[in-house]
């Protein structure tokens, strides 16, 4: 399966680096050597992929738990459809919210349409954050819940094959 619009060489580059950049003094040169490309070409391609947003960033992905962020909550809200467009970005702008999305409701099992991920060192910290979101949403939110993550079962990211 090939992604539409992705240059085949870019694709090989992403496939070779998605598991991680080589930990050596010249990681881009190392990748270039493995792929039979010039190091300048590899660096130019990474710059273009970053500029176009195909790569969000190159960096470290922390394990929240290992960094001491032991309380990781997915707060979910049933927000008035007429007001979610205004309120969603405000919730997303709160410093402690790391992801914020609108998603479909699936009644009756799932009545919530706004998802905001919050992270604290303790459960009490998460509770305070949720309270702050509740105050911001006010009567636009009819109900909410907080789903704490109790175990990371898998964390790999997209796999290009």
């Amino acid at each position, binding site marked *: 399966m090939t992604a539409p619009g992705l240059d085949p060489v870019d694709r090989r580059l992403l496939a070779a*680096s998605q598991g991680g950049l080589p930990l050596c003094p*010249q990681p881009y040169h190392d990748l270039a050597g493995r792929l039979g490309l010039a190091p300048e070409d590899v660096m130019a391609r990474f710059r273009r992929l970053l500029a176009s947003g195909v790569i969000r960033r*190159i*960096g*470290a992905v922390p394990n929240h738990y290992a*960094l001491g962020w032991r309380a990781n909550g997915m707060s979910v809200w049933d927000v008035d459809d007429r007001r979610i467009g205004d309120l969603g970005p405000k919730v*997303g702008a709160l410093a402690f919210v*790391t992801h914020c999305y609108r998603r479909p409701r699936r009644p009756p*099992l799932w009545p919530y349409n706004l*998802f905001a991920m919050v992270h604290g060192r303790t459960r009490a910290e998460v509770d305070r954050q949720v309270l702050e979101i509740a105050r911001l949403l006010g009567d636009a939110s009819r109900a909410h819940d907080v789903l704490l993550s109790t175990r990371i079962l898998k964390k790999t990211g997209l796999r290009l094959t």
Partner: protein
Amino acid sequence: MDDIDRRLVNALQGGFPIAERPFAEVGAMLGLDEQEVIARLQTLLDDRTLSRFGPMIDVDRLGGGLTLAAMAVPDERFDEVADIVNGFDEVAHNYQRTHALNMWFVIATEDPAEVERTIRRIERATGLEVLNLPKLEEYFLELKLSA
């Protein structure tokens, strides 16, 4: 993890340089030499303080498919079902959460049509219903957490 590790993790979340000697550049910012940056990073990956170090691909920009899915898994089947779900390459993340819907996973595929097919395959393999909750709008995404 010591203070130097914390500063390194914070610095590396922000964006790794694209340069001839990127680890040396990171080191220069932190007052570390290149080899120490590499050695500390290797340790942080080995002890799982970091789950990954490298490019983070935006599946949407790639034209791929992405969704959040949830399942209500009976407790006595939880580990068995987790193994089945994790066995799918299309499942990028999977978390256990405190709710009747107790398994939440992200499906990421190069071909958007594969999302729906993957959901059907997971339903057949587990005998459980999968709730598909694709993103309708993104209000914010920021993965940085201070160490």
